[in-house]
C-alpha cells in the first residue's frame, strides 16, 4: 500500500507488520499491533493512522476519523503518515481532506517536488481547477519541468469548460491559457506532443480556427505523430469549421485514393463537392487548385471518381472493399435529394444493389449496408427486387416440403439476407394470416436445416441459422398483435426457447424472451435470462431498464431489490473510478481525455435510469419493510432521506437507455422514431416525478409523525412542525400538479413499436386509481397532523372532514381492489389465456395500503386487506389447480413434439412466476394485516 523501499529507516521496520496485516485484511491484528507500537513509541504518528485505517475498515468510522484528525492537526511531513492518511481519507470518501494535508506539507517543505505534485493531484481529485492552476505553477517554479507548466495550463482550460459564464471562459481563462502556451512557443520550449495537442484544444475552443490550422500545418504540427492521420484529421476538422470547401474536398479526395474504404471521407468529399457547386466555385487560373491539391467541382467529376474506384475494386484479385460501391449508392441518394438528373450516369439503383448483393451477399453485414439505401427503390419495384435477389441464391433441389435448401454457409447467408430484405421492405407484413403461417413453416424448415452447419460450434458461438429462428419469432409477434391470438405468443416463446437450446449465448434470443415474459407479467424467468446476458458496467445503464421497469411492478420484490442494487452499485462506483483516471490523464498528458472523462461521469450521474432505480429502491424498502421490520421513521432516517431536497437533475436528464437493443427488421414506417424517444422520456420523467414526490412525501410524513410526541415538553418545536407541514403541503400540491400533467400525457395513449421502449407504469397507475388513492391517503395524513396541532377541542370541522376523507379513501381502495379481481391465468377451450395487468393492479393496491397502515385507522382497512388476501389466496389456489399438461398443443398449426415441449416449458415458467408474484404479494399483505392488528388506535 505505501512505499516501503527504504529498509534502513527503523520506523519502516516497526510499521511493516501493521502494513502486512492491513494488506491481508486482518484489521483486528493491525489495530493490536499499532497499539503495541504506540505504547513504546508515542510519537510514531503513522502507527496511529494505520490503526485508524484498521478501525475504518472494521466499521468504526467515528473513532477512525478522530484518530486521523489527531495526526492531521500536527501537519505531518513524513511520507508514511501522508500516504496512509491519503488512503484513509479516500476510503472515507473525504478526498477534500487530502488537499488540506498536502497544503500544510508544502508549506513546511516548500521545495519538495513530490508534495507539490501530490497537492496538485489532490486538487484534481476534487476538481478544484483554480487551485490546480496555482499548484501547477508552484510546482513548475520549484522544478521547471514542462509537464508541470502544462498541468497549470490545462487547469485553466478546465476553468473555462466548467465556467457558468461562457464569456468568462472566452475572455479570461482561454486567452490566458493561450498566452501561457505562446510564451513557451516563443521561447522554443515546446517538447511533447501532448503540449501541441493542448495548444490545439485551446485554439479550437477559442474559435481561432485559422491559427489552429496554421499551427497544425507548421513545425509544431510535426510533433503530432502518435495518432494515425492526426494532422490530416485535424486539418479536415478545421476546413469544415472554416468552410474551406476546396481544401476539404481535395484532402478527402487524396485520403480516399489512399484508402478507398474510409467512409467518413466519402461523406466529407460529397459534402464539400455540393457546397462548391452551390457557390459555383472555380479554381484560380494557372495555379494549383489549393494547398491540398486538385478539387472536384462538378457532378461529372464525382461520378467518374466513384466509378473509377469501383472499377479498381473489380480488377482486384483480393477481397473487394465495400466502400466504393456504397459510395455510389450514397451519391445517387444525394443527387436525388438535390433533384439532380445526373444520377442515371451511375446506373439503376436496383441493378446496383443486385450487384452489391452479388459481391457481398454472403457477408452478414450485407443487410445492414443495403438497408440504408432501400428508399432508392420505388415500392412497385420491391417484389421484383426480392425475386431477382432470390435468383442469386443457390439453393438445392426442392424437396417434399416444397423448399430448397442452401448447400453451405455462404449460400445460407445469402438466403438469409434475402429474407431480411424482404422483411425490411415490408413484404412480410403485408401477408395475411395464412401467408404468415406459411412463411413461419418455411423459415422454421430453413432454421432446422441450417443447424447442421453449426454442429461443431462452441457454446459461445452463434449458430449460422439463428437469424431464421429470430425472424420466426418476429412473425409470430406480428400474428399475435394483429389477431390477439395468444397461441401465437406461446409458440413464439417455444421457438425462442428452442433456439436458445441450440445457441445458448444468443443475446437476441434472450432479450426477446425477456421482453415477452415481461409483457406476460412473468418476471421469474427474466431474472435468469438477464443474468445470463452478463450485463456489465455501462450496460446496467443502457439496458438495465428492461429489468427494472418490470421487477417491482409485477410483485417480485426480492428480485426487484436485487436488480436495483446491481445498477446502483455500478453508478456509485463511477464517481470514484473516473477521478482516478482523470488524474492519470494529467500524468500521461492525455489532456483531451480529461473533459471527456468528466462528461462521461456527468452523463452517468444525470442518467434517467440512475434516478429511477435510486427512487424505486427506497420506495420498495418503505413499501415492503416500513412498519413491519422497523418503523417508517427509522427507515426514512436510515436512508438519509431529506424531504426538502430534490436530487434529480430534471433539466439535464440523460436518457442513456438503448432503445434499439432488440434487433428489428421492421420497415421504416414501423421503426422507432425520434418522437417515440421524446415521448418515452417525457412519460418516464413524469412517472419518476410522481414516484419521487411520493417518496419525499412519505419521508416528510414520517419525520413529522415524530415531532408531535415532543410537542408538550418543548414548545419551540411547534415552529419546526409547521415548517415541516408546509413542506408537506408544497409537496402535495406539486404531486397534484404532476398528476394533472400525467393525465394529459396518458390521454395521448402513445404506442411504441413492440421492440421499442416499454410503456411506463404511468397509464396503469392512473387508470387503476392507485395514484389518486395515494394522494388522498397523503392528504389525509396532513389533515390528521393539523388535527393534532389544533387539538381535539376546537376542530369539529376538521374532524368531520377527516371522517369523510376516511370513508372516501376506503371506497377508493375498495374500487382499486375490485379492479384486481379476475383470473391471471385461465384455460378456456384448450387455450391458455393471461391477464397480467391484474398482477400489476394488485401491486398498485398494495402500495397505498402501506401508507394507510401508517395512519393507524384500522377497522375498515383490515376488512379490505383481508378481502385482498382472500383474493390472492383464491388466485394461488386456482393457479395451482391449473393443469397445463391437460392442454393439447399444436391444434390448428402443426408443431412437432419437440416444439410443443419448448412451448410447454415456457407456459410452465409463466405459471410458476405468477404463483411466485402472488406469494410475495400475499406475504406482504399478511404482514401488513398482522401489523395492523397489533396497532392500538
Amino acid at each position, binding site marked *: 500500500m505505501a512505499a516501503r523501499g527504504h529498509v534502513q529507516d527503523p520506523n519502516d521496520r516497526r510499521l511493516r507488520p501493521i502494513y502486512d496485516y492491513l494488506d491481508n485484511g486482518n484489521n483486528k491484528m493491525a489495530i493490536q499491533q499499532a497499539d503495541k507500537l504506540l505504547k513504546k513509541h508515542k510519537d510514531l504518528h503513522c502507527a496511529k493512522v494505520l490503526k485508524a485505517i484498521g478501525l475504518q475498515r472494521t466499521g468504526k468510522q467515528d473513532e477512525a476519523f478522530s484518530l486521523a484528525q489527531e495526526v492531521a492537526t500536527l501537519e505531518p511531513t513524513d511520507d508514511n503518515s501522508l500516504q496512509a492518511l491519503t488512503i484513509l481519507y479516500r476510503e472515507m470518501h473525504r478526498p477534500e481532506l487530502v488537499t488540506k494535508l498536502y497544503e500544510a506539507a508544502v508549506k513546511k517543505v516548500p521545495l519538495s517536488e513530490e508534495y507539490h505534485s501530490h497537492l496538485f493531484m489532490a486538487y484534481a481529485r476534487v476538481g478544484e481547477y483554480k487551485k490546480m492552476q496555482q499548484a501547477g505553477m508552484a510546482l513548475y517554479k520549484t522544478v521547471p519541468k514542462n509537464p508541470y507548466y502544462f498541468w497549470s495550463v490545462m487547469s485553466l482550460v478546465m476553468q473555462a469548460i466548467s465556467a457558468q459564464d461562457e464569456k468568462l471562459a472566452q475572455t479570461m481563462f482561454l486567452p490566458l491559457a493561450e498566452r501561457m502556451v505562446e510564451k513557451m512557443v516563443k521561447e522554443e520550449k515546446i517538447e511533447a506532443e501532448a503540449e501541441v495537442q493542448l495548444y490545439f484544444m485551446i485554439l479550437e475552443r477559442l474559435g481561432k480556427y485559422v491559427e489552429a490550422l496554421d499551427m497544425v500545418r507548421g513545425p509544431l504540427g510535426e510533433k503530432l505523430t502518435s495518432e494515425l492521420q492526426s494532422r490530416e484529421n485535424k486539418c479536415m476538422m478545421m476546413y469544415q469549421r472554416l468552410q474551406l470547401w476546396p481544401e476539404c474536398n481535395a484532402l478527402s479526395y487524396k485520403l480516399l485514393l489512399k484508402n478507398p474504404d474510409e467512409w467518413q471521407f466519402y461523406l466529407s468529399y460529397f459534402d464539400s463537392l455540393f457546397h462548391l457547386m452551390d457557390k459555383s466555385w472555380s479554381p484560380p487560373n494557372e495555379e494549383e487548385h489549393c494547398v491540398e491539391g486538385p478539387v472536384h467541382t462538378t457532378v461529372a467529376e464525382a461520378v467518374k471518381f466513384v466509378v473509377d474506384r469501383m472499377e479498381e475494386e473489380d480488377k482486384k484479385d483480393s477481397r473487394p472493399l465495400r466502400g466504393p460501391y456504397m459510395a455510389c449508392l450514397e451519391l445517387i441518394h444525394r443527387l436525388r435529394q438535390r433533384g439532380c438528373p445526373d444520377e442515371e450516369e451511375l446506373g439503376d439503383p436496383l441493378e446496383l444493389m443486385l450487384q452489391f448483393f452479388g459481391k457481398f451477399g454472403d457477408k452478414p*453485414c450485407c443487410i445492414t449496408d443495403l438497408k440504408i439505401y432501400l428508399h432508392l427503390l420505388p415500392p412497385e419495384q420491391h417484389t421484383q427486387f426480392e425475386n431477382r435477389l432470390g435468383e442469386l441464391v443457390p439453393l438445392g433441389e426442392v424437396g417434399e416440403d416444397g423448399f430448397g435448401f442452401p448447400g453451405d454457409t455462404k449460400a445460407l447467408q445469402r438466403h438469409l439476407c434475402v429474407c431480411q430484405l424482404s422483411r425490411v421492405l415490408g413484404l412480410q407484413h403485408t401477408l395475411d394470416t395464412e401467408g404468415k403461417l406459411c412463411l413461419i413453416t418455411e423459415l422454421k424448415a430453413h432454421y432446422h436445416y441450417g443447424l447442421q452447419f453449426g454442429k461443431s460450434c462452441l457454446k459461445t458461438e452463434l449458430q449460422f441459422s439463428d437469424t431464421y429462428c429470430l425472424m420466426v419469432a418476429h412473425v409470430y409477434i406480428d400474428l399475435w398483435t394483429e389477431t390477439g391470438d395468444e397461441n401465437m405468443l406461446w409458440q413464439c416463446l417455444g421457438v425462442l426457447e428452442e433456439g436458445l437450446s441450440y445457441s445458448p449465448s444468443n*443475446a437476441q434470443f434472450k432479450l426477446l424472451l425477456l421482453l415477452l415474459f415481461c409483457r406476460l407479467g412473468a418476471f421469474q424467468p427474466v431474472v435468469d435470462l438477464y443474468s445470463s446476458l452478463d450485463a456489465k458496467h455501462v450496460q446496467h445503464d443502457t439496458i438495465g431498464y428492461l429489468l427494472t421497469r418490470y421487477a417491482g411492478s409485477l410483485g417480485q420484490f426480492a428480485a426487484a431489490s436485487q436488480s436495483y442494487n446491481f445498477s446502483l452499485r455500478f453508478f456509485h462506483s463511477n464517481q470514484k473510478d473516473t477521478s482516478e483516471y482523470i488524474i*492519470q490523464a494529467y500524468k500521461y498528458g492525455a489532456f483531451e481525455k480529461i473533459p471527456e472523462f468528466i462528461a462521461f461521469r456527468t452523463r452517468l450521474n444525470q442518467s434517467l435510469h440512475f434516478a429511477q432505480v435510486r427512487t424505486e429502491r427506497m420506495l420498495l424498502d418503505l413499501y415492503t419493510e416500513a412498519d413491519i421490520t422497523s418503523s417508517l421513521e427509522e427507515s426514512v432516517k436510515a436512508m438519509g432521506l431529506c424531504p426538502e431536497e430534490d436530487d434529480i437533475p430534471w433539466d439535464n436528464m440523460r436518457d442513456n437507455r438503448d432503445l434499439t437493443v432488440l434487433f428489428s427488421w421492421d420497415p421504416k414506417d414501423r421503426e422507432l422514431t425520434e418522437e417515440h424517444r421524446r415521448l418515452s422520456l417525457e412519460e418516464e420523467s413524469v412517472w419518476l416525478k410522481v414516484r419521487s414526490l411520493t417518496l419525499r412525501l412519505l419521508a416528510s410524513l414520517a419525520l413529522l409523525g415524530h415531532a408531535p410526541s415532543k410537542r408538550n415538553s418543548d414548545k419551540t418545536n411547534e415552529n419546526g412542525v409547521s415548517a415541516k407541514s408546509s413542506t408537506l403541503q408544497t409537496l402535495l400540491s406539486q404531486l397534484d400538479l404532476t398528476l394533472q400533467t400525467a393525465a394529459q400525457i396518458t390521454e395521448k395513449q402513445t404506442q411504441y413499436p413492440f421492440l421499442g421502449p416499454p410503456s411506463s407504469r404511468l397509464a396503469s397507475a392512473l387508470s387503476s386509481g392507485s395514484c389518486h388513492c395515494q394522494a388522498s391517503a397523503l392528504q389525509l395524513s396532513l389533515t390528521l397532523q393539523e388535527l393534532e396541532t389544533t387539538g381535539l377541542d376546537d376542530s369539529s370541522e376538521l374532524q368531520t372532514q377527516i371522517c369523510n376523507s376516511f370513508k372516501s379513501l376506503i371506497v377508493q381502495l375498495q374500487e382499486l381492489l375490485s379492479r384486481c379481481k379476475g383470473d391471471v391465468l385461465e384455460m378456456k377451450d384448450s387455450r391458455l389465456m393471461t391477464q397480467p395487468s391484474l398482477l400489476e393492479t394488485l401491486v398498485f393496491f398494495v402500495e397505498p395500503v402501506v401508507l394507510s397502515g401508517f395512519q393507524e385507522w384500522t377497522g375498515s382497512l383490515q376488512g379490505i386487506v383481508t378481502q385482498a388476501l382472500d383474493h390472492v389466496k383464491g388466485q394461488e389456489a386456482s393457479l395451482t389447480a391449473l393443469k397445463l399438461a391437460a392442454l393439447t398443443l399444436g391444434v390448428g398449426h402443426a408443431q412437432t413434439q419437440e416444439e410443443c415441449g419448448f412451448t410447454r416449458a415456457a407456459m410452465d415458467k409463466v405459471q410458476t412466476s405468477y404463483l411466485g408474484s402472488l406469494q410475495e404479494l400475499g406475504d406482504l399483505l399478511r404482514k401488513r394485516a398482522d401489523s395492523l392488528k397489533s396497532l392500538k388506535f
Partner: protein
Amino acid sequence: MTTLRAFTCDDLFKFNNIQAFLNFLSQYGIPFYLQYLAHWPEYFIVAEAPGGELMGYIMGKAEGSVAREEWHGHVTALSVAPEFRRLGLAAKLMEMLEEISERKGGFFVDLFVRVSNQVAVNMYKQLGYSVYRTVIEYYSASNGEPDEDAYDMRKALSRDTERKSIIPIPHPVRPEDIE
C-alpha cells in the same frame, strides 16, 4: 467501408448496438478502459459502420525497455462483431496498431491468444505473427473450465532488422516470468 476513429467514452454506451453480440465489450470493467484511454489513447481505435453501428475495436499499449530492445507494441484486445466479420477488419485494425508501434520505434508487436483458439492463431499467422513462446496457465479458469495456456505471438517491426525479437523460446514459461 468503415470509419476508423479514436475510441471515446461515449462509445461505451453504444456497444449494445451490435447485433446478437451483447458481450462485445464487457469482459473488462470501466477502470480498465479509462486506464487505456488515459495512458495510450492513440492505441484505442474503433471502427464504425455507415449506419453508426460499432463494428469492432482494437486496444493496445506500448511497453518494455528500449535498452534491452524489448520496447514494443502490445495488443490487449481485438474484437470484431460477428455481423462485421469476414471483411478484413481485424487485419486492418492490426495494421494500424503496427503502424503506431513503428512510429514509436518499437522492436516488435506481441499478443496473447488462447492455445485452443485456432481461428485466431491462424489469423495472426496469416498477418505475419509467429509463436514466440507458450505461457503456461495464462488464462485463469472460469465456469468450471481448467486454466488454459496462451501463445505469446510476435511480429518483428522494421527497427528489429535482424528479427531477433521473434526467435522462438523452446521452453514454456510461467505467467510470473513474463513482464
